Every structure is written in structure tokens, then in C-alpha cells.
């Protein structure tokens, strides 16, 4: 095996065996399992949540229409025509026989409702009942006034309004939705990866430096090889972690298929996304990871104690946060000038250009240009990083400023 492979496998294997890695992965998987089963869990605690409601209908004939209106919505509410008196009904509610009591009276033949429950506050239940009673009242009132039901229909229905795109290949609303979902997923993945794995890379480098094993390493293998082998090793580690999570998530979705057909995917609208979008997502993700990972490794080589890593990583976190916030803003207005301009800045490209590519029709030259910019940024960073890395590993002492970059560069060159 060449040195790249040796360092890569070493980075991966020593990390994957650590307790902290196993624990974080286990906790994440547990969290996903919990989130996925939240409904069943709530059920097992609360038992049946069905609301039993007694209805005393003084007008007569409202209950069937009310039931019909309610049927479309919740199943968890059942109405029972009450035969006793109002006082008896209230007592039953106090005793817990019923969850609530609805009294329907009539005012000039227009139905009115009064809802009694223990709390008496407006609740989802009372709101549903009110909504169900509204159409009943409307038709009664119309009927009393002698208006044709068809005319009522026309008055109350909402206006017909359609949007039409003139551009031939404009995205449909469905496509926009799916794009938005994918951008969300991408934003979070990239954000998390950079914060988690970028930090891990910087820590790893700083660790080797603080234990002084670095000098032996740098004398055995070229710094660039070391840097990229480490980046690749941590990437593989990330894949393992994400892989485990995705597999668990998938199995869970499969087992609950009847409950949520396509649930999560539908929610994010991922079903509508084409293969091209996924390829873009992959490429932008990889480029983004590479860029930030290179930056992290470079910064990691500048500190001599692991405690200083966080301090130096702060600017990296700020960068990805700025990108994240512009992207969140860009989701609602992807054609904004700010988004357009910043999508060419390499540190923001993976999020913002991806957002634009999926949500708008971006001319191909813009995409190529952004690719070119980010790739050259990676190359420049890697070249500078390798030199800083080589000099930085010989640099010990208090370090927390950009002056160290200069000193590290000085150490690595002839002068």
C-alpha cells in the first residue's frame, strides 16, 4: 500500500474504534428511532385519545350534518346525541363520562353552539366543532332568506387564480418544492459535516502536533499526502456514520410504510427530484467538504495544543454559518442579487450555487465558472496549506493569530 493508503486507513481505523465515535453514532441512531416512533410512543402513554362529546340538539336535525362535516377531518372525535337534560350532561362531563358537552340552540332558526368542557378554553376540539357548525349555519340562513344553494356556493367559493410561466423550461411549483427540500437537506448535511468533521480533522492534526509525533510523520511522508489522506480518512468516517444512520432510517421507514407512505421523502419533496439534481448535490457536497476540510487541516497544523483548536476554528464556523444564513434567505428568493453574487465566492458556492441550480435556470457558464473558482480555491488552499502544514508542525508555542501563518510559511521555505 502506498503512504496515502496507509495514513488513510490509520486515520479511519483508529477513529472508528474510539468510544466517542461509537457513542455519538449510537445516540444519533437512537434519536432517529425515537423521532420515527414518536406517535406510537405517545399512544402507549396516553392510550386512546378519542374525544367523547355529548350533543344536546334543541333545534333538531343539526347533528347529522355536523357529523358529516366532522367526518372529513378527525376520526378522534365522536359525537353522541344526548337524551338527558343540560344539567345531567354537565354532570356527566364533570364525572368524566364525556370529554365535552355541546349544546346547540336556535336563535331565529339559526343554530348556535355552546361548548362545555372542564377547561373551557378554546381548544382544537372546540375549534373543529365551530368549523363544522359554520356551514350548517350558512345553509340554514341562506335557506331562510330564500337564496338558491347554488348562489351560496358561488358566493363562498374562492376565486380561481393561476400562475403561468412564460419561460419554456421554467420550474413548476412541484419542482420548486422538491428543490427546496433537497436544498434543505444539503444545507444541513454540509453544515453538520463541516462543523463535525472539520473540527475532527483539525483536532487530529493538533493532536499529532501536541504529542510531537508529527516530526516523525513529516520526515516519513510528504505533508500534502498526509493532509489529504487525513481528509479522506475522516470523510470515510463520516460516510460510515451517515451510512449507519441512513440504513437505520430506511429500515424504519420500510417497517412503517403503511403509516407514512413515502412520508419523509414526500415532506421534503424528494420524490420529484431528478437524477441531475442528485449529481449536482453530490458534486457540490464533495467540493464543499474538500474546501473546508483543507482549511481545517491547515489551521489545525498551526496550533500546538488541542485546546487552541476551537479558537482557530471559529472563523471557519463563521464562514459556514454565513453561507447557511444566506442560503436560508435565498430559499424564499433565489433570484436575489446577493445570492447570485455570493454564489461565486468559493466558501459559499456549495450551498448557494447549488440552491440556484436547483431552484432557477442558471446558465451553464455560471455553473462552470463557480466550479472553476471553487476548484482553484481548493488547489490554492491545498498548496498553501501544505506549506503551512510543513512549517506549522515545527512551530511550537502559544499560537492564536494569523502571524503564525506567516511564521509557518517562513519555516517551510528557503528564505
Amino acid at each position, binding site marked *: 500500500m502506498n503512504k496515502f493508503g*496507509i495514513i488513510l486507513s490509520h486515520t479511519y481505523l*483508529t477513529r472508528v474504534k474510539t468510544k466517542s465515535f461509537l457513542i455519538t453514532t449510537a445516540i444519533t441512531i437512537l434519536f432517529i428511532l425515537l423521532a420515527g416512533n414518536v406517535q406510537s410512543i405517545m399512544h402507549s402513554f396516553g392510550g386512546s385519545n378519542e374525544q367523547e362529546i355529548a350533543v344536546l340538539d334543541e333545534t333538531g336535525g343539526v347533528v347529522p350534518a355536523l357529523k358529516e362535516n366532522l367526518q372529513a377531518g378527525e376520526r378522534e372525535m365522536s359525537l353522541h346525541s344526548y337524551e338527558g337534560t343540560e344539567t345531567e350532561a354537565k354532570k356527566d362531563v364533570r364525572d368524566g363520562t364525556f370529554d365535552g358537552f355541546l349544546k346547540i340552540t336556535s336563535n331565529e332558526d339559526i343554530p348556535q353552539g355552546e361548548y362545555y368542557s372542564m377547561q373551557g378554553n378554546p381548544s382544537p376540539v372546540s375549534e373543529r366543532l365551530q368549523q363544522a357548525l359554520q356551514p350548517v349555519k350558512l345553509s340554514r340562513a341562506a335557506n331562510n332568506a330564500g337564496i338558491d344553494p347554488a348562489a351560496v356556493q358561488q358566493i363562498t367559493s374562492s376565486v380561481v387564480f393561476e400562475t403561468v410561466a412564460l419561460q419554456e423550461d421554467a420550474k413548476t411549483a412541484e419542482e420548486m418544492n422538491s428543490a427546496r427540500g433537497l436544498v434543505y437537506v444539503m444545507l444541513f448535511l454540509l453544515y453538520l459535516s463541516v462543523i463535525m468533521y472539520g473540527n475532527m480533522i483539525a483536532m487530529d492534526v493538533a493532536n499529532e502536533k501536541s504529542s510531537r*509525533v508529527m516530526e*516523525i510523520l513529516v*520526515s516519513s511522508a*510528504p505533508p500534502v499526502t498526509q493532509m489529504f489522506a487525513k481528509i479522506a480518512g475522516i470523510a470515510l468516517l463520516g460516510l460510515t456514520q451517515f451510512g449507519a444512520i441512513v440504513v437505520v432510517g430506511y429500515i424504519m421507514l420500510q417497517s412503517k410504510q403503511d403509516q407514512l407512505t413515502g412520508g419523509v421523502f414526500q415532506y421534503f419533496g424528494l420524490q420529484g427530484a431528478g437524477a441531475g439534481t442528485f449529481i449536482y448535490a453530490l458534486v457540490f457536497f464533495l467540493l464543499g467538504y474538500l474546501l473546508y476540510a483543507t482549511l481545517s487541516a491547515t489551521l489545525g497544523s498551526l496550533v500546538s495544543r488541542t485546546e487552541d483548536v476551537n479558537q482557530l476554528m471559529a472563523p471557519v464556523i463563521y464562514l459556514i454559518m454565513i453561507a447557511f444564513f444566506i442560503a436560508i434567505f435565498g430559499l424564499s428568493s433565489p433570484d436575489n442579487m446577493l445570492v447570485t453574487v455570493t454564489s461565486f465566492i468559493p466558501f459559499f458556492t456549495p450551498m448557494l450555487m447549488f440552491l440556484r441550480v436547483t431552484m432557477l435556470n442558471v446558465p451553464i457558464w455560471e455553473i462552470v465558472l463557480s466550479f472553476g473558482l471553487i476548484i482553484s480555491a481548493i488547489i490554492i488552499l491545498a498548496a498553501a496549506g501544505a506549506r503551512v502544514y510543513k512549517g506549522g508542525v*515545527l512551530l511550537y508555542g502559544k499560537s492564536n493569530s494569523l502571524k503564525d501563518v506567516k511564521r509557518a510559511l517562513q519555516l517551510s521555505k528557503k528564505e
Partner: protein
Amino acid sequence: MTLTLDSITKTFGKTTAVQNLSLEIPEGEIFGLLGANGAGKTTTFRIIIGLLEATKGRVYWDGSKVTYEKSGMVGYLPEERGLYPKLKVKEQLIYLGRLRGMKKADIVKELESWLERFRVPEYMNQRVEELSKGNQQKIQFISAVLHQPKLLILDEPFSGLDPVNVELLKRAVLDLKENGTSIVFSSHRMEHVEELCEHVCMLQHGTPIIHGRLKEIKRSFGKKNLRIHADFDLEYLKHTDGVLTFSSVTDGCVLQIDQETTAEHIFHTLQGKGFVRKFELEEPSLNDIFIEKAGTSYE
């Protein structure tokens, strides 16, 4: 394969770490690089193995620079010891050995025999952080020599070791030399240098002030030590011509004299004064030379 340093100069900003250093280290020899703290030894080592780039001058080994292609033939024991504290000795050396181009099976075999030799076979599966400092140093030494390098750089290899372990390591260094490894090493312990090296170079503020074969350096130093143990008072020798320093010891004194004829002269003056138990003319120790040249003691 000869290691040649051709007028090396290295500056960091305004400070000059090494100035115009030229060395030639023949194959299969132990070369001693001496100097006070901060004299430029570690910088020189780093330049030799390519960690630092010389500002001026060149390093050749076997006709060309020491590059990463050759790293399998080079062993390095840095002054600042460094191993992964959390890794077991075996895992650690497998990793470092593979980076130097060894096969895993060979590493384990070699490591076993080295641990046996250093009388610590039980450390195989222990974490480095659990070992004492001296034992960590043994492991570090093994990591530098495991791949049987042709060029071995040892920066202060014996510091922090007890006399038994110093002997073990010294023996190992000599065996490596027998097998044809060129070794460059630095030490503050002059007796180690005298014992091991044929050629030495002494640096002061980055400039070589003594350089050559150890025997010749001693001879050309001129000054010698004269040890006299006698039953009578020797104080009067203080004022003899050619006596540079006088120091009393139990039973007598040790003089530093400018040349051999002075000793002859003193020998004659002693006649008839009483019983002389000991009269010994010693070569100057490297320590004397070092103190004289560098003006600092490291004993």
C-alpha cells in the same frame, strides 16, 4: 553512501541558525555533532532529512537530496520525543514502520526482537502513555531503527536514561554501525561522544568551531592534563611556566599544561622532594575542549 553537507546556511528572519557548515560523513561511521543549547544542531538535522530547506548550500546523500523516496532508508530520533500516547506500542510501530516502507509481518518480528533486546517484551500491547519516560524513549529509539536505516539521525539519544539503559542503547548504536549504518548524533555528554565517534564537529552559534577526527582534535588542542598524587605539598607548581590551571584533588592535584615538555620539566622538579604515588599525563578530555571552546559546562 556518504552524506555531504556543502556550506549550509540557514536563517530564520534575522537570526542565523547555521552558518556555512560543511561536513562529510562517511558510510558506516558515527559522527558527533556537538554544541551548546541553541547552537544549531537540531536545525542541521532537520535540514539533513529535508524537514527544513537550507537558505544556502546543499545536502547530498548518495549523490542527491534526501527526499521522501528515500525515507525508508532514513531513521530519525527527534530531540522532542513524540509518539501517539493513546496507541499501543505495537499499533504505533506498525503504523510508523509501514510509513517507512516495511511490511506488517516484518515489523512485528523486528519489534519483538528489539523489545527482547531492551528487556521490555511485555510492552508490546501497552499504551505508550502508560510507560515511563525512559521506556517511552526506548520505544522511540526502536521506531527510528526498526527499518534498518542506512542513515540514522539521533538527536540526544541518551538523555533521560539510566546508566543501564544508556549501555543498552549504546550497544545497539554500535551494532547498527557495524552493519553499515551511517549515524549522526548529538549529545551534551562528552564521554558518550568520545566513546562512540570518530569524527566530531562542534557548533557555536551555528558556526563550526572544531571539526575533524577526534584524535587529531585532541592532539592539536595541545593542552594536556597532568595528574600528580604525592605525599608532599604541590602548591608550588601553580607558578611553574607552562602550567595553565591548577586544581587540588585528594592526594594531589590536576594541572592543565600547554605542552608535553612542560610535563617533563615538572617531572624533574619533583625529584628528591618525596614519594610520588602517581604521575600521569592525560590526553585532554572532550569536555575540557568543549568548555574551553564553548565556554560552558554541561556536566
